[in-house]
């Protein structure tokens, strides 16, 4: 009897939980390292929206590997906005599910990327292996931690940053390939996501250097009390642009388009930019950038469009099945 009553109660719970989304609620489907950023930003936006319109809005977040998150949206996860690690994943949503138009990236300023980041190194206290630039990563006895580019967006930026440096340094695709080949031979664990790699490096104490998002490196340093880890900025890196977009069809269906658009636009406001900078993302807004100038060291950055002709050509060349990344492991 108890079981039956319990089942009924549970069933009732489901039925109530189902249509309860009547109050304005946004779902932001994002990638791994943005958890802290959006925790702070969601609260700020709710406050801003309340003071602007008097309406209550709560923003729910979902985090995971960028590719996995994109696929969930394609498979029906009802995201009002997506804030993913790379444009390629939003392109996939647009081309496979037609939930948003393929010119989505032109709808907001700066390639729809309100904040940027780059790829840096995190090493242990005192930099015992003397790592200063990409060349040092392939020195004898250095173990490198980076996630799997097949499943992690951040890992793809890592890979391309390494490639861009090697191509400039050694002058040809072949030599760049030899360099990344050498680099990935030193990776003992390929975690599925960027956060997994950070935990492997910081908590499980594996490896000598972690190739990471700049924001992720800052955050890991902060979480660990700051003195056990050091950030090393290489001579050249890539301008990582994690884009944002409203998922039109979902937002229209839920009737949340207005607030969803406002949610993304507020990211470009000074307040939004400051929250991004406080969470170690490089702000686009020049005034805010100047305020945080000390935090972000200057370095030479290539872009995905200039160095790799955009994600549409980089993805198949490097990361699809049989691409250059696969060749590293299959040549063995």
């Amino acid at each position, binding site marked *: 009897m108890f079981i039956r009553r319990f089942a009924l109660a549970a069933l009732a719970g489901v039925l109530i939980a189902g249509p309860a989304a009547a109050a304005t609620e946004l779902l932001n489907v994002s990638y791994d390292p943005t958890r802290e950023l959006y925790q702070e930003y969601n609260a700020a936006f709710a406050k801003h929206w309340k003071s602007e319109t008097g309406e209550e809005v709560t923003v729910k977040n979902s985090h995971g*590997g960028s*590719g*996995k998150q*994109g*696929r969930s949206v*394609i498979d029906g996860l009802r995201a009002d906005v997506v804030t993913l690690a790379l444009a390629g994943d939003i392109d*996939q949503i647009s081309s*496979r599910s037609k939930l948003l138009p393929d010119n989505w990236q032109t709808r907001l300023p700066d390639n729809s990327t309100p904040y940027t980041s780059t790829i840096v190194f995190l090493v242990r206290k005192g930099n015992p292996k003397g790592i200063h630039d990409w060349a040092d990563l392939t020195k004898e006895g250095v173990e490198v931690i980076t996630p*799997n580019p*097949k*499943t992690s967006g951040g890992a793809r930026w890592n890979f391309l940053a390494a490639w861009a440096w090697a191509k400039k340094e050694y002058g040809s695709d072949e030599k760049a390939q030899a360099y990344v080949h050498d680099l990935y031979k030193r*990776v*003992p*664990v*390929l*975690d*599925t996501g960027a956060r997994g790699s950070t935990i492997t490096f910081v908590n*499980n*104490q*594996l490896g000598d250097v972690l190739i990471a998002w700049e924001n992720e490196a800052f955050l890991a340093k902060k979480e660990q009390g700051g003195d056990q880890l050091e950030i090393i900025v290489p001579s050249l890196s890539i301008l990582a642009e994690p884009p944002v977009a409203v998922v039109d069809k979902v937002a229209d269906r839920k009737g949340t388009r207005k607030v969803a658009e406002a949610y993304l636009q507020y990211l470009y406001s000074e307040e939004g930019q400051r929250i991004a900078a406080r969470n170690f993302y490089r702000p686009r807004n020049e005034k805010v950038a100047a305020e945080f100038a000390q935090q972000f060291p200057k370095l030479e950055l290539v872009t995905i469009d200039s160095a790799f002709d955009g994600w549409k050509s980089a993805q198949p060349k490097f*990361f*699809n*099945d049989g691409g250059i990344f*696969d060749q590293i*492991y*299959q040549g*063995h």
Partner: protein
Amino acid sequence: MSRRTSPVIPGFGLTLGYTIVYLSLLVLIPLGAMFVHAAQLTWDQFWGIITAPRVLAALRLSFGTAFASAVINSVIGVLLAWVLVRYTFPGRKIIDAMIDLPFALPTAVAGIALTALYAPAGLIGSLLQPLGIKIAFTPLGITLALVFVTLPFVVRTVQPVLADIPKEIEEAAACLGAKPLQVFRYVLLPAILPAWLTGFALAFARGVGEYGSVIFIAGNMPMKTEILPLLIMVKLDQYDYTGATAIGVMMLVVSFILLLGINLLQRRIEHP
């Protein structure tokens, strides 16, 4: 089509019908969806996917570590079952109760805990590090995780059978001069063999598909420590649904054949 053994007991149609409907809705139709999806491939394409070097390497790893852990568990399992059935000692009840813990512990928690133990900086990993033994992020670590997850299978299948063997048989054999090993070989082994095999096969089948506990400790290196379920995830993350379902179908067929084999074997032993 039915041959009822006891015509007076009602409910055959009802229970069989319900079983088949429920089974179909929950298991067969969903699994069928995977076959439908994989059917978009021609046979050559399907074969090409499941014989790609990376898939074959994962196949070897998944089946190899699952087999190794099932073998280890066969030994440990019979040991535990024997000790729990035949000896009384302090803590026996606690051990007996906790054998099922790996079933009950969420696999992700198991994975995190095992990684914390066996990583180079972990409690056990740091002891083994100076000896040059690496466990986490190697096939050895995967095997250990699987030993943990599938530990209860052999114990729980062999235990009741051992408990049912009349003590007199062993005693008689021993009185007739059989050495302990001979008693085991000629008296116990034939009796527990079917249960032992069942436990082994269940542990093996479960091990091949295990994901949550393995993923943290595996290292996930292509060609080296990448397990089959992870490869499915990797394919999915590249939006390669057909590739993922092809591997899924292959794993499913293997599981089905394995289990069918066990069930037929059991029936043969029960009704010779």
